[in-house]
């Protein structure tokens, strides 16, 4: 997730920008750059660490400038693609976070007008477009340019002809103003300038702002001036990277309404009622697929298991899910099957090895990952990005839900290609997808209640999670989350399997978390709860909010919205994450760095 900073005031802009970029490092980045105005735009950008870039930075003078840390999503990691980008006349500098969806069309038009492009980025198009609309007033030019742009963005712009102002605008990407004395700041998050001021003004979607060293002006989409009050940030710098949350994991759980939105955005087309991936992925899927192998480790493996249910249900194609470390030695390789590797980091060694094995045996390979430019994206035939932003907590949260969603979109795409789904049914799923961020938010609002139930689990020696169908892999994931961060022994079982062994372990002091949806197995699940209750343990049910029956059977109920259909797996996951988090928090565990675990496992 890119980081943006703009500064105008009396201090040395270079120092402020470099310092702020350093503060934005935690967001993850592969390249960075700054542009400071001193009569002309002084530009410096490069790939690599801020500290390295800083060493080579020329001694730019000036008290107005912009800076950027880039986390590549479109276009490779190169010096040219790093921000800021200048317009052709070198007067206008732009930093940008987001994606311009119609940038090819805009670029072609601008090329016809004679504009020359130095990079592959959509950001450069914005710079040129602003120049094209410039008639002596920067905010007017930005306003006109943005009218032509489709997509989402936060941008910060300077122009050498007007060295007394910075213009910022946002749509769906964050941008916040830091209010100082004789100076002002613009950044993608408060961390960037918190050292200098804790007074902020938040920009809303579609708004544009002009900041000078004395003044802040905000305009809405219709160019009508807006008055907005300052807010005071209460947390200090060390909390800032976590946006005020006590742990990265909790912050990342709370990121999910946004990350869920990110996965879907640009990939579903309501008008054409279809799902869109990039060309390589589409080509790969168009070649008749008879079977699918999903390979992954840990949490990604559970995402794969959920993917199996989704793909099989929507397409009828058989799916095999295998652990990477097993598949690489023992997996069956069929040239006609598609191998989908799921890996958050794109660097998991076992998965990379399995992927290479699959490739060598002639299978088509597709990678679902969060990191562009990672090894997995380079060795596979095609890749899909989960676009969740960096995940710092070792326990995967937002990347897991994003992986599920990518697999869901894949399943829909394949069923469209195979003509297995009607336009109306597809539309129903599209609406469910669009509803999802709100459903996740509803779960987050229950955090306190979940914390209350967590107190029932915190002293348990062992916890069982059970479910059927989609809820079986969710049970596995729920158990994994709990054990990895709270160190309580936890197991997930298919509910029907309890009587074939696990019952032997069930005692009064083994709480059981039951995931129940109102599908064909509902009655069976109620019976399973009865079996469990007969042996004395407390039952915590995760059930639909329209389920009025469940209260009679379970000791505690955590509801999720009924309207999510197949996608209920996402809100349920969020409940399981919060449950594990609160238990670990009550037990005062090291949540972001559990013992013996690493974020990305690059050893065998």
């Amino acid at each position, binding site marked *: 997730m890119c980081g943006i900073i703009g500064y105008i005031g*009396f*201090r040395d802009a270079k120092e402020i920008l470099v310092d702020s970029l350093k503060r934005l490092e935690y967001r993850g980045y592969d390249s960075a750059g700054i542009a400071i105005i001193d009569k002309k735009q002084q530009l410096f950008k490069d790939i690599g660490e801020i500290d390295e870039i800083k060493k080579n930075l020329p001694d730019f003078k000036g008290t107005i400038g912009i800076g950027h840390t880039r986390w590549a999503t479109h276009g490779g990691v190169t010096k040219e693609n790093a921000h800021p980008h200048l317009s052709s006349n070198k007067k206008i500098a732009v930093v940008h976070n987001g994606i311009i969806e119609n940038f090819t069309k805009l670029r072609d038009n601008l090329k016809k007008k004679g504009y020359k492009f130095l990079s592959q980025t959509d950001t450069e198009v914005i710079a040129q477009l602003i120049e094209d609309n410039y008639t002596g007033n920067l905010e007017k030019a930005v306003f006109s340019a943005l009218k032509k742009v489709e997509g989402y963005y936060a941008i910060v712009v300077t122009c050498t002809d007007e060295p007394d102002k910075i213009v910022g605008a946002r749509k769906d990407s964050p941008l916040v103003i830091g209010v*100082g*004395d*004789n100076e002002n700041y613009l950044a993608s998050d408060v961390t960037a300038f918190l*050292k*200098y*001021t*804790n*007074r902020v003004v938040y920009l809303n979607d579609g708004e544009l702002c002009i900041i000078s060293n004395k003044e802040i002006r905000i305009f809405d989409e219709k160019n009508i001036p807006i008055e907005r009050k300052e807010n*005071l940030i209460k947390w200090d710098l060390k909390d800032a990277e976590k946006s005020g949350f006590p742990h990265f994991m909790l912050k990342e759980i709370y990121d999910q309404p946004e990350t869920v939105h990110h996965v879907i955005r640009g990939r579903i087309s309501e008008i054409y009622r279809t799902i869109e991936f990039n060309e390589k992925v589409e080509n790969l899927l168009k070649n008749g697929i008879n079977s699918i192998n999903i390979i992954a480790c840990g949490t990604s493996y559970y995402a794969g298991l959920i993917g199996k249910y989704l793909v099989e249900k929507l397409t009828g194609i058989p799916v095999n899910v295998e652990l990477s470390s097993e598949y690489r030695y023992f997996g069956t390789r069929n040239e006609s099957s598609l191998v989908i590797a799921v890996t958050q980091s794109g660097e998991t060694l076992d998965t990379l090895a399995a992927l290479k094995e699959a490739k060598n045996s002639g299978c088509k390979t597709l990678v679902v990952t969060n990191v562009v430019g990672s090894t997995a994206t380079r060795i596979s035939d095609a890749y899909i990005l989960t676009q969740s932003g960096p995940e710092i907590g070792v326990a995967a949260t937002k990347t897991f839900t994003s992986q599920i969603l990518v697999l869901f979109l894949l399943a829909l795409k394949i069923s469209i290609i195979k003509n297995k789904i009607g336009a109306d049914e597809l539309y129903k799923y599209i609406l469910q997808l669009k509803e999802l961020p709100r459903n996740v938010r509803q779960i987050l609002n229950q955090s306190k209640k979940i914390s209350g139930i967590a107190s029932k689990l915190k002293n348990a020696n062992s916890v069982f999670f059970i479910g059927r169908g989609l809820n079986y892999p969710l049970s596995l994931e729920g158990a994994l989350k709990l054990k990895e961060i709270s160190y309580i022994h936890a197991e997930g079982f298919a509910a029907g399997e309890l009587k074939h062994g696990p019952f032997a372990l069930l005692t009064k002091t083994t709480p059981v978390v039951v995931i129940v949806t109102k599908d064909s197995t509902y009655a069976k699940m109620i019976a399973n709860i009865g079996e469990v209750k007969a042996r004395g343990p407390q039952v915590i049910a995760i059930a639909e909010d329209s389920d009025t029956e469940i209260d009679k059977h379970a000791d505690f109920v955590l509801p999720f919205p009924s309207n999510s259909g197949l996608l209920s797996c996402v809100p349920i996951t969020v409940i399981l994450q919060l449950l594990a988090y609160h238990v670990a928090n009550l037990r005062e565990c090291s949540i972001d760095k559990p013992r013996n675990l690493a974020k990305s496992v690059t050893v065998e």
Partner: protein
Amino acid sequence: MKCVILAAGEGKRMHPLTFTRPKVMIPIANKPILEWNLINAIDAGIKEFIFIVSYKSEMVRNYFKNGKNWNVKIEYISQGEPLGTAHAIGTAEKFVDNFLVLSGDTIFGKQDIKKIVEKENSMGLYKIQNAEEYGIVKIKGNKIVKIFEKMQDPFSNDINAGIYHFNKKIFNYIKKTKKSLRGEYEITDSINMMAEDGAFEGIFLKEWRDVVYPWHLLDANEEILKKIDNKTEQTVEKNITIKGKVIVGKNTTIKSGSYLEGPVVIGDNCKIGPNCYIRPYTSIGNNCHIGNACEVKNSIILDNSNIPHQNYVGDSIIGQNCNLGAGSKVANLRLDKKNIWVIQNGNKINTRRRKLGIITGDNVQTGINSMINVGAILGDNCFIGPGAVVNGEIMPKSKIL
């Protein structure tokens, strides 16, 4: 001439009072230290101020705003990082020509400020008995030779008072200043360089009061209260005794049987009495309640705090929004009459005071009949249970039951 006031410091040695406010916002005689500074500088003829702020700067800003209430102009500069006095002063470069610098946590007299204003490139000096806590200045005639860091056995009693008059040249020296041993850019190092290159004058001050530790506030409070005039806007019931000079704020009611010995200052909207005894050198903030059978002596009570029923508070500082339970009492004298030591931030410090009660942060509550021993420091948001006996340093948010 503009006056730059250094007001960025957190003041760790002022804990627990600075857990919840910057040092310059601690009130003495019902006005923040910074306001006393401001008033004295205004009296010396200064109209334009720049406050260098950082720690909890919103409290400074909300209180002083743009200076309109004082008929002066106040601007703010955020220091960013606490990198030392030279760094703080350096941030003002673009806003000043010839300018005065005051340490915001030291109170200077207006005549002394005038003298410094008159002499370009000068600094204030003060003679003090125990100089080991301060920077020592070596002078020749009235010229500064060198300013030394604080030392164990100071060779002189002339200390750096923390008031300066610079011209633009100082910024060249600030840029050349290197980090000191304690890792900060010190203005004294910049001045030393400047003094080597040319004349920098020392001027001895008549009045000077700095506050390092909380108990120094009691001395400063006493000093200011000695100068006050009578001024009462209160409702006074019958059978009240007021001796000496007492200031009472708006809407404050003093109820029957109260005995007030000045100098005492009481803020607005307070309820005093009935039947209480308020002794000299006491400052009581706004919205406070001193109730029946309570005795308060030589103490600073911050806004919204209650000493409501059968309490004794002597030589103490009580934070904002505190409440003492019925019968809670404070000890302020060792039975062996020796100096009182306190533990602050884990360090044991000799206060050199024979009488010292307690220092509490904000939002402290004590239960009935709790007893707090001499020199106890209670962090903000502490709970002291009924009948508890409290000693030493209590961390913020603790519960003592």
